[in-house]
């Protein structure tokens, strides 16, 4: 059976003026369904570039990226959008909720583009908000929520479609320690209880500690890749 993610000699080259910036340089990587991976590395090492590509927001300049066996490099923008909608959930450092739009409606958004009926959208989005502990906050606007709560709305939006892959680029980067721990516990639970594959970018060691595998990137290449826990099933008690 194919792995969830297979990167094979992936390059990402940005052209700025007449200088080529090589953000990814022949990176190869395999991630199985159900893994919890932390990606670390210094600023500018290519973490976000990799995440964007894994999330089908971008395509490699060279090399192959297969998601669930599908060659992503060959897809059209609309096909990429379809894959993002069906299989991928995003959590961003800056939450990226739609302003002046309620928590429920933000969480509904992916279902809206799936073409579900309004009723189904509402039921599922409310359920997703419940799972991240935001029951009763459905009608709150982003400005009426704390940073941690906003990030939980973003997680609800990411998991409302039951994706196979959840990508979080520095999800705790804008949060205090308390909120960071809450967010991480939610992600850990999603990985453990629902088998959602999670890939997370972080600069913080204690955040990375929630993951079972740690990949360090330097200059667009993998510097180290190691299992930090026996497997995705076991997890520290209480953390």
């Amino acid at each position: 059976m194919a792995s969830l993610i297979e990167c094979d000699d992936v390059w990402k080259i940005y052209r700025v003026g007449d200088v080529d910036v090589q953000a990814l340089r022949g990176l190869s990587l395999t991630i199985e369904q159900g893994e919890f991976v932390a990606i670390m590395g210094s600023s500018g090492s290519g973490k976000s570039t990799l995440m964007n590509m894994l999330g089908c927001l971008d395509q490699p300049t060279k090399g192959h990226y297969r998601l669930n066996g599908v060659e992503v490099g060959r897809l059209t923008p609309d096909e990429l959008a379809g894959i993002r909608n069906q299989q991928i959930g995003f959590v961003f450092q800056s939450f990226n909720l739609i302003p002046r739009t309620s928590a429920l409606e933000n969480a509904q958004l992916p279902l809206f583009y799936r073409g579900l009926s309004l009723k189904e959208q509402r039921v599922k989005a409310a359920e997703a908000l419940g799972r991240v502990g935001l029951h009763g906050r459905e009608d709150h606007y982003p400005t009426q929520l704390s940073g941690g709560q906003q990030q939980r709305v973003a997680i609800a939006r990411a998991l409302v479609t039951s994706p196979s892959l959840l990508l979080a680029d520095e999800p705790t980067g804008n949060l205090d320690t308390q909120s960071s721990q809450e967010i991480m516990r939610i992600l850990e639970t999603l990985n453990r209880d629902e088998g959602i594959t999670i890939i997370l970018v972080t600069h913080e060691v204690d955040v990375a500690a929630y993951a079972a595998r740690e990949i360090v990137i330097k200059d667009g290449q993998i510097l180290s890749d190691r299992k930090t826990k026996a497997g995705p099933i076991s997890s520290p008690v209480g953390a």
Partner: protein
Amino acid sequence: MAAFVWLTIMTALRILGRNRMRAGLTMLGIVIGVAAVIAMVSIGEGAKRAVQAQIATMGTNVIIIFPGVTSASGVRGSQGSAITLTVSDALELKKRIPLLVDTGWSRRDVLQIVYGNKNWNGPIYGISPSYLTIRDWSFTSGGPFTQTDLDSAARVALIGQTIVDNLFEPGEEPVGAVIRIKNVPFRIIGVLAPKGQSSQGTDQDDVIFIPFSTAERKVFGTSFIGSVAAMFGSTDQVEDLPMAAEQIREVLRARHRLQAEQGDDFTIKTQVDIGKVQEGTSETLTMMLFAIASVSLLVGGIGIMNILLVSVTERTREIGVRMAVGAKRYHIVMQFLIEAMTLSLVGGVLGIVLGVAGAKLTTLIAGWPTIISGNVIVISFFFSLVVGLFFGLYPANKAARLNPIEALRYE
């Protein structure tokens, strides 16, 4: 899809509601354009209909022949000054031209009419009985005079409503009453049904009809027996009017012994000619309306495009988020198109309401007749939609072409 469109419309309305001032200013061009067009078309239609109704009061398929020549400006130098048309001309035309159903004639003078202790200066028409049928006069009471009355120069009269109003008490029956014109007693045998204003704006009900022969011999005291001020003919079909007019011209030229190089000593006008003058004015009006509408819709459209471009820039991040969670190109295009069309449609509907109100107010205040046609409302609505669609396309496409990563990073 239905849910998508519905929710997008709701979202668009909410966004517009949030920026009410901005939305209002943006819509202003369309509101004013549509309102102006609706008001103007309603007033124009009302005026056109009124003129048509006035022209219809002339009679059905009528040809009018005046003595003398009408100048290009349409002002007759001296009506009836040249004594070129006679009763025998009219009779000859009827005999010679089969297209003419009938011919009639009239002469006019303004004289004092006395009834009891009241008097009134009104135009007295000496007419042939056929005049009444050609000009479609009907009666509210009594009836017309006949050929016998003409032959015997009977002292009978038909009076219009204005005369009735001025000489008789309300409720008093004029038929059977005797009035005096130049001290000659006339018995009223019919009251004419009102026609209102003519297309020249004269009161058509301010008339007294008496037999032509009676007028000649007992009232007008003319030295030119048999000369008439106007002749009238009518045809069965409106299409026959030009042909009949041409034949009349030929017969009259022959009878008046006009040489080829001489101009006509009479003027022929058909009901169609008179209508055409009016149509010409309304065509100019229509062109002007079209220009106003085009300019204001263009300005309105550009306003919408401008505000949408601003909106696309302001909401770049939102667009990025929508793309990240799976919005396809057409979803983004639709979102902005629907926003543009909502703007233009709301503007259009406001314009329609304002235009209709303006037309009604014009009727109320100025007393002009207005006709609000469903067509112009439907067309305005449709055009606002098209304006939104057209001017929304560029911003919508611009939004849909954004790169999701760059959009998400946009500050």
